[in-house]
């Protein structure tokens, strides 16, 4: 039975909690995206680069990284969060709270990003890389000035996709006391039978996703225009 009646919602109490939750979610998501996104970009470039026939061709390194990424990526995040606990304590010092949630998020985000980056670099025409090599560009220069710029539009869309994935992960942070919108929806909405609170959190998340996806689409479209 759905009860939208909000007679027992006390927004004078809930409002500051909601704002705090939004703040926690944004903190977790942004830090994860920046750190995990950057580490993932590096790992993704290594994955791409060590592929057979590419700049840093190395079958052993590629195969090892490939297997690790394949093992980590399919683990459901809620289980990953629990499994990572010992390592989280070592690295962060605690396994409870927002910061403790960020660490496993960054790890998962790195692996997810790396695969997305690799897949979006593969279609870059190897002829352009050869042209840059023929002009004397170093391998790192080629990555920075040819490879990434050429794949920029799909990479931006990949990062928008990641934003949604990271937002999804952040909703589970509540389980280890990380707070955030997901926790807000569960603790003050679901568990108190208050659909208004649950839906408030849901709508805020929808708006966040729409805004990010909209911006990413607009940038990618502009970038792609010059290539077509």
């Amino acid at each position, binding site marked *: 039975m759905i009860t939208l009646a909000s007679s027992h919602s006390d927004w004078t109490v809930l409002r500051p909690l909601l704002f705090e939750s939004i703040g926690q979610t944004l903190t977790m998501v942004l830090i994860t995206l920046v750190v995990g996104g950057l580490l993932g970009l590096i790992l993704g470039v290594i994955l791409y680069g060590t592929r057979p026939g590419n700049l840093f061709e190395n079958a052993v390194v590629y195969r090892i990284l490939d297997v690790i990424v394949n093992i980590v990526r399919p683990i459901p995040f809620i289980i990953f969060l629990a499994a990572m606990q010992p390592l989280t304590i070592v690295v962060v010092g605690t396994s409870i709270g927002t910061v403790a949630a960020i660490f496993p998020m960054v790890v998962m985000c790195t692996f997810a990003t790396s695969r997305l980056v690799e897949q979006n670099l593969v279609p870059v*025409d190897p*002829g*352009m890389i*050869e*042209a*840059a*090599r*023929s*002009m*004397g*560009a*170093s*391998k790192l*220069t080629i990555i920075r*000035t*040819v490879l990434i*710029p*050429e794949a*920029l539009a799909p990479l931006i869309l990949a990062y928008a996709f990641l934003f949604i994935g990271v937002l999804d992960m952040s909703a589970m942070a509540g389980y280890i006391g990380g707070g955030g919108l997901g926790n807000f929806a569960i603790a003050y909405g679901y568990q108190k039978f208050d659909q208004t609170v649950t839906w408030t959190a849901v709508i805020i998340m929808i708006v966040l996703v729409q805004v990010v996806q909209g911006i990413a689409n607009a940038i990618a479209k502009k*970038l792609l225009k*010059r*290539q*077509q």
Partner: protein
Amino acid sequence: MSEPIITFDHVVKEYKTRGKGAAATRAVDDVSLTINRGDIFGIIGYSGAGKSTLVRLINALERPTSGSVNVMGTDITGLSEAKLRPIRQKIGMIFQQFNLFSTKTVAQNIAYPLQLDHWRKDYQDRRVAELLEFVGLSEHADKYPSQLSGGQKQRVGIARALATNPEILLADEATSALDPETTTEVLALLKRVNEEFGITIVLITHQMNVVQQIAGRVAVMSAGRVVESGDVYDVFAAPQQPVTKRFIATALSGLPEEERVERLHHEWSGRIVTVLIRQKDVSGSHGHTVGASGQNISGLIAKHGVESSLLYGGIDTVKGTAIGAITYEFSGPNVEPFLKELAQDSDVVDFGTAENPVDYAEAVSGYSSQTVTSEGAE
């Protein structure tokens, strides 16, 4: 004048085939070759002949398995990537698929090698403007490659390759993706590059007419080996290898193919004869001379009073000398003595009459080494 700028010394390049114990593939097989400064040097061969690998050994995009490559006086065989950088900046390269950076404008593409070379921004701008002017694309500076035609893209490729004032320009099938008209334009531009800047051009192609249009010297590659090389006219006029003859048949207009000879026999009852035309004697690089051919034909026709009809033919100029083949139908009582005398000073391919045809392969092989054989185009 003939100072070597690129020297291959017994160069071998092998690729490991996948799987253990599998034999390595030899892309380049014991090639020794010298390319002189200021030349336009054509390397012709079918795809898979190893010519793309050979050209990439010059800027060390590929490393030899054995042998050595000397470029501009430096043995580049064992140089590190870092040490190769200044050498690569003196070797421009253009490609079949142009390989322009799709997210950079025309001007940014041309400026790219200048940025690598850390040029000051205002020098870069001036150089880019200069190059755009040279290739005739000044008004397209801010366009992206996708907005250009194939010929324009290759001109941007040429401008980009010339940016750092190279001494050598490598052209890897640079015109293969272009239509014949655009090909001619691009080749004319390459010729200007060679003449105005004295840049040595190494031109890889599978099209004989490309070599014919601009190259001074040519090497013919087959199965990783250079099977024949020398002055374009020598090789063109007196090919020694079957693969060379095959290439020449694709470019030498005038020799009728087998089906055409059959059709001519259908339509004409007389003797079908192809006379090869060479405007003057050619001294071959193999120590022999190939004589002029077909120069006295009109006189002989008049002398013997044979009836003649011109059926088919083509003449081309290679390095300023007319060369080609013309096919006639001859009839009348004096055809035999006429042909006998004609054959003394000319190369003649006798296809026989409709009643008594000569087998095509036999007819064409009859004069064998002189110019074109029956193998035709692939």
